[in-house]
């Protein structure tokens, strides 16, 4: 079985995110990291490999992004992927969800995986949709926000919470599954794995290598257009206290509760 894990380089959670007012795109300068949700995808792949129910021949990390995105691939390899593929091309800049999904699907097509795993969302905002976009392009079944995977040969059984409670869904492979962060506890990479990551094979591909036409991606291939950006309406929040002296804080809370006859 061959598993492809999609990964993405995102601004570090600790960095204040901002929009570049000129390009109206996320300002991507500043500290970057591997999207935390994707580490759960890699861990899920590792657990399938170690679980022994199926033979996992290869785990391949795949990303699309500027040259700096190789760092996300190195991290993915340090976490267990055997090799990685980087789709990098100037023509991709400014791709919206539709164009990004198509581009990633084309890269995956060239790998013919049995299972594609990815995080259910990226820290910088592509909410919950990428797995389902890619699956439709690949004509594979898919499920998102999965918190449990059982692999059994040709099919996998997945669980997730949907609108009315827990769903259990059986899916034939090949399939695209996006996972939630409750699915597992990603391991820490060993020092040896971190050191060795740069030596593992990394394929860099341009759009032409995977059959993408320049007009299918980037701003030209995008089907949405950002017209403008505005600050949100001011909201009146409640009273806020900072905890400096906990005894005092607790007194204030109790007084507040008391006033409302809640204690």
């Amino acid at each position, binding site marked *: 079985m061959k598993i492809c894990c999609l990964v993405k380089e995102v601004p570090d959670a600790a960095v204040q995110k901002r929009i570049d007012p000129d390009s109206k795109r996320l300002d991507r300068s500043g500290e970057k990291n591997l999207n935390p949700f994707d580490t759960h995808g890699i861990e899920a792949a590792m657990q399938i490999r170690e679980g022994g129910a199926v033979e996992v021949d290869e785990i391949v990390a795949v990303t699309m992004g500027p040259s700096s995105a190789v760092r996300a691939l190195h991290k993915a390899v340090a976490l267990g992927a055997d090799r990685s593929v980087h789709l990098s091309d100037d023509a991709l800049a400014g791709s919206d969800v539709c164009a990004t999904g198509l581009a990633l699907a084309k890269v995956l097509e060239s790998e013919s995986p049995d299972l594609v795993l990815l995080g259910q969302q990226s820290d910088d905002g592509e909410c919950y949709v990428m797995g389902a976009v890619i699956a439709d392009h690949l004509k594979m079944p898919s499920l998102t*926000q999965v918190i449990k995977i059982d692999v059994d040969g040709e099919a996998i059984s997945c669980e997730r919470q949907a609108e009315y409670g827990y769903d259990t869904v059986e899916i034939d492979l090949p399939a695209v599954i996006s996972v939630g962060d409750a699915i597992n506890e990603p391991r820490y990479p060993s020092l040896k794995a971190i050191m060795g990551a740069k030596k593992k094979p990394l394929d860099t591909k341009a759009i032409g290598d995977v059959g993408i036409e320049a007009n299918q991606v980037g701003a030209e291939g995008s*089907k949405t257009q950002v017209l*403008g950006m505005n600050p949100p309406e001011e909201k009146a929040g409640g009273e806020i206290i900072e905890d400096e002296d906990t005894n005092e804080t607790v007194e204030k809370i109790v007084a507040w509760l008391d006033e409302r006859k809640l204690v």
Partner: protein
Amino acid sequence: MAGILVYALHDGEGNFNKNALGAISEAAKLAGEVGGEAAAVVVGYDGDDAGEKLGAYGAAKVYRAKDVPEGLAQPIVDVMTKVISENGFSYALFGGGLLGFEIGAGLTARLNAGVTMEVTDVEARDGKLVALRPILQDSAIVDVAYVGEPGIIIGRLNAFDPVESGSGAAEVIDLDVELSEFSTKARMVTRGEQRGGDVNIEDADVLVGGGRGLGEKDNFKLAEELAEAMGGAVAATRAVVDAGWYPYATQIGQTGKTVAPKLYLAAGISGAIQHKVGMQNSENILAINKDPNAPIFEFCDLGVVGDLHKIVPKLTEAIKAKKGG
């Protein structure tokens, strides 16, 4: 025909989802502006009342595929693709929720269409729809227009209110849809299973909600002790329920329960919209969170910025002392 097509999610027993009804209401409001009407797609439902139930919220037509199963996205993408390609809708609109994301995403790929998610408002400008989407933890709102048709709009939870428009029953059109081969490769084994027994959190006057900020499963005893001191019960976020720290029966929110106690004390809860929808009607909301930018501080009545591990045990003691004294 132009117009706006909405997916009408239901629970399998004829109860349509509130967010889906909200989306239909919104579509009905906007349809005239883009030329055309609001229509709904329903699968896996053969009740005679679909036309009445959805017409009441402004759907003019209901496209129904009785034999297609509800609950999995890809078969529904097949149905919506057929309806759109045969009738030429300009927009597809989804109410907030997991299935809306999946179906909207599938349609995006299938129709090579633009998509916007987490949309909080939709405006008609010059006969076209513009979606308003908050980004970067709601610090900015972008206005998004669509290039070509259809445009796909996925709402945020509760973005659109269900409004009974007083319209009559919608015309129901039954469809036979041949599913794509890959759409049949996922099979629902069980849908909507309730787990974790019959804990009753709906009746409690005081609820202590525990989130991931508690740090680990064992720390729920902090929430339990506080709840006990206050004569209340413990509730949880999905993040901790998914992680197996607390039973599903105590989960508050979109995919959990809706509560309205006298006091909701949120300990280590960020206040994500999916959680908020389940507890926002509490009479008093008190939040303890160490991140001053946590969304919960925007809608609580009293916000305490600090470490719950320091505050909660002392608060429990203080309440016990007060009650004892």
